[in-house]
């Protein structure tokens, strides 16, 4: 039975995994911070796949969300023609998944952005009628023109800004490079939109630039992926929309307080994907800074926090950082959802101080995995086959040791694995573009520590 009296706001928990013991003179404290949110009226526990139809369609709470779907309608979408048709079908399927009451709109993107539905610079409120109308409007979509993704994002931002909704989300589909505006224009558009809405980005086919798509998702705190075969679009869009519908709290930030004399060396999201956050700090009072995490549904994410503390004498203990999850309030204050402590204890016990926390070790490996894959593929493109072999070999080794099977599988399409344990590989002479782009796009996906 659904518990209607229970608040629909998710409950957040923060757990810190670290080895707090430092040797004499030790200054670097590493910790993995696991943040989990469990929503109201759900089973709680581990993150639910957002594919629960009852929940996605008939959610009990008042939907307080807006979604804009941005579909690439550039000329290249007609080659092959199935691409445009699949994009239309996928958008239709995504619209089917929009919950009643959620505000939505569809934007056609070329070298300019055009409202397809509902038009008039506003969002429609989802119900049976508007969903049918929107799907009707999709028939009019046709391919022709260039690609200037920055304009699409700016229009989506304007539309989402017109509605009074808490959760603002975009879904962006592109099949080609952002050729009709400068990278600076796109950068400026991303900067303007960051923090205003979250956005998932998908590349369809293989003619798009991985860095552009992952860059958009990264800046707008969404997911990035490849849909090499346009036939897979409908399923992917449905899933993305369901995940978006599962979001219940927006604009959550990770606040790190560090004591006088301490400094944050880096902050990274490390699960479900690796995402560098260090540079995204905004100051929040004395010795505290906020790092954006976007919107949350029922899910769990891990962060790797590395703090440099002033060295202290053996036997001393200090708080290296206080980690809190905060929700900004309309009046400018911040509500603390949950918090955890990162500690430092100096000891002369070598056994204690040299132990590496399993979580920290695991995610250090996962971050290196993402890094060596990207570097290895770069080397390969640049013709440095030795470098590529060494780096992708290391990637195979890391993926195998950590049990990251999905990444291992993707790697095996690019290299022949001789011995996974030692990281001995040979580059495959022929690699399809789709396999290479899939590996690059998904290189940041991580797995959790094996139980």
């Amino acid at each position, binding site marked *: 039975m659904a518990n209607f009296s229970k608040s629909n706001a998710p409950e957040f928990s923060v757990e810190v995994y670290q080895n707090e013991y430092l040797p004499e003179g030790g200054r670097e404290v590493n910790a993995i911070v696991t943040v989990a949110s469990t929503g109201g009226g759900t089973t709680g526990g581990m993150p639910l796949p957002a594919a629960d139809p009852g929940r996605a369609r008939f959610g009990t709470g008042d939907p307080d969300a807006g979604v804009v779907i941005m579909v690439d309608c550039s000329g290249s979408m007609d080659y092959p023609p199935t691409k445009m048709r699949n994009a239309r079908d996928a958008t239709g399927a995504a619209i089917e998944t929009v919950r009643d009451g959620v505000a939505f709109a569809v934007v056609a993107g070329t070298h300019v952005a055009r409202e397809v539905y509902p038009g008039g610079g506003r969002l429609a409120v989802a119900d049976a009628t508007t969903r049918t109308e929107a799907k009707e409007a999709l028939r009019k979509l046709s391919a022709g023109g260039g690609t200037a993704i920055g304009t699409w994002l700016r229009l989506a931002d304007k539309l989402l800004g017109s509605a009074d909704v808490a959760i603002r989300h975009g879904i962006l589909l592109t099949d080609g490079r952002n050729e009709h505006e400068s990278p600076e224009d796109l950068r400026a558009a991303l900067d303007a939109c960051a923090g205003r809405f979250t956005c998932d980005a998908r590349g369809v086919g293989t003619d798009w630039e991985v860095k552009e798509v992952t860059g958009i998702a990264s800046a707008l705190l969404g997911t990035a992926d490849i849909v090499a075969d346009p036939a897979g679009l409908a399923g992917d869009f449905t899933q993305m929309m369901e995940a978006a519908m599962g979001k219940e709290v927006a604009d959550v930030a990770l606040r790190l307080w*560090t*004591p*006088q*004399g*301490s400094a944050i060396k880096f902050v990274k999201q490390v699960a479900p994907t690796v995402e560098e956050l260090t540079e995204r700090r905004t100051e929040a009072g004395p010795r505290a800074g906020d790092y954006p995490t976007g919107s949350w549904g029922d899910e769990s994410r891990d962060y790797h926090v590395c703090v440099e*503390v002033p060295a*202290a004498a*053996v*036997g*001393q*203990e*200090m*708080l*290296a950082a*206080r980690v809190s999850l905060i929700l900004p309030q309309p009046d400018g204050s911040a509500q603390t959802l949950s918090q955890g*402590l990162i*500690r430092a*204890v*100096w*000891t*002369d*016990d070598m*056994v204690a101080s040299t132990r590496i926390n399993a979580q920290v070790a695991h995610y250090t490996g996962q971050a290196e995995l993402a890094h060596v894959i990207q570097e290895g593929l770069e080397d390969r493109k640049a013709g440095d086959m030795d470098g590529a072999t060494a780096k992708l070999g290391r990637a195979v080794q890391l993926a195998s040791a950590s049990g990251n099977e999905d990444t291992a599988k993707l790697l095996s399409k690019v290299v022949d694995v001789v011995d996974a344990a030692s990281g001995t590989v040979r580059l495959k002479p022929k690699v399809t573009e789709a396999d290479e782009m899939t590996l690059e796009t998904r290189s940041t996906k991580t797995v959790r520590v094996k139980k």
Partner: protein
Amino acid sequence: MANTPPVSQLSACPSCEEPLEAGDLFCGACGADLAAPAPAPAAAAGSAAAAEPAAGPNGAGPAPAAPPAGAGDAAPAAPAAGPVAGPDSRSPEAQRTGSYRIAGPGDGPQAAGDTGEYLLDAPEEDPEHYRLAEPVAPQGADPRAALGTAAPDAPDTRAAEPAAGPVPSGRRCIACRTGAIDTDGYCERCGHAQPRERDHMERETDGVAAVSDRGLRHHRNEDFFAIAGAALPNGAPATVAVVCDGVSSASRPDEASAAASSAAGTSLQAGLGRGLHPQQAMHEALLAAAGAVNELAAQHSPLSHQNAPACTIVSAVIAGGILTVGWVGDSRAYWVPEDRAAPSARLTEDDSWAAQMVAAGLMNEADAYADERAHAITGWLGADAHELDPHTASFKPDGPGVVIVCTDGLWNYAEAAAELAAAVPPDAAARPLHAAQVLVGHALDGGGHDNVTVAVLPFPGPAGGAGPS
């Protein structure tokens, strides 16, 4: 019983020091089960249930059935060759080497009530120096005692007061002296952990005193102690001290030492009150302590058995002119006679690698204790202790003196009995708390590499008057 053991009223979480509210079952900060270590004494209060040998982990029968073989050699020389009765006069339950039956205890005034003093005073100026610089006055409080709340076993309501209210707003960090203290006990400016109540504990009751200190190299105090007065069935007073040292490599050693010392102290009071021979009461107390530590392991997942909480224990009882000690592990008891011309003595035999090497004649004492394995203990209380072998011994000193009950945090700096005796102030029997403070100071001056806990019991006990008959 004249003395009802204090019912523990935890004012702060034993594992994280988070202040608690009345009725809390679990710590709101760390989730620790508050029923764990503290209720042991409460549950056993006024009843001997917890002291039944059956509670022991190895299911050993009652004490008399299990005299340790060869204990005669193991028991160190009696502090005084003085007037001990022949072995034939021993009672059946005391037929263990080293135990001597003596004349009935002298009658004395009623046992004093529990007057656990808790010292809450202003912090010292220098945060880095917790030395007992002015040990002259018993009130020479340590800054860390002042900052904490009541010791978990302190029944004194005065001591509990600071825990009741919120953290005083005027409190400043001991390290940077500017930051305020947050609710987690860290400085809001420099992040330094603030002293916790267990960092330094002092207590004096019924003429017995004990001091425990975190030391200078460990970040928390994993030692614990219990001291108490007890009354024999005939109304004669007795004094009890228990000192436990948590095994650092085990999980939750601080909880283990707290549970063990509380359980042993309560069991001893109950046992003596029922008229058990002190050595029998001591045996039961050690088993009760072992049971309390084992329970800690049971409270958590079976996995925690791999690294179950563990601690050492040493205890001394002075009742009716007899001095009884009991121990498991490498915490010790020493006899220091008031007449310093008389020889002092170590009363316990460590369950440690070094002691075993010496006992087996494989190494001499100097070499054995210089070895890096010297402190590896071969006996302890805890669920992963395969065979519990509690040792007890009784002595009848022929003159007044003090018994020093301590953890290795002290005897590392005064190993030989003579060395230790040299560190004991001459007026130790008259001012036991001062003596305990001085001895803790001795360990801190030596480097304070470990937690250090010292209990001082004057002999004869409070009722004994000028000396033994």
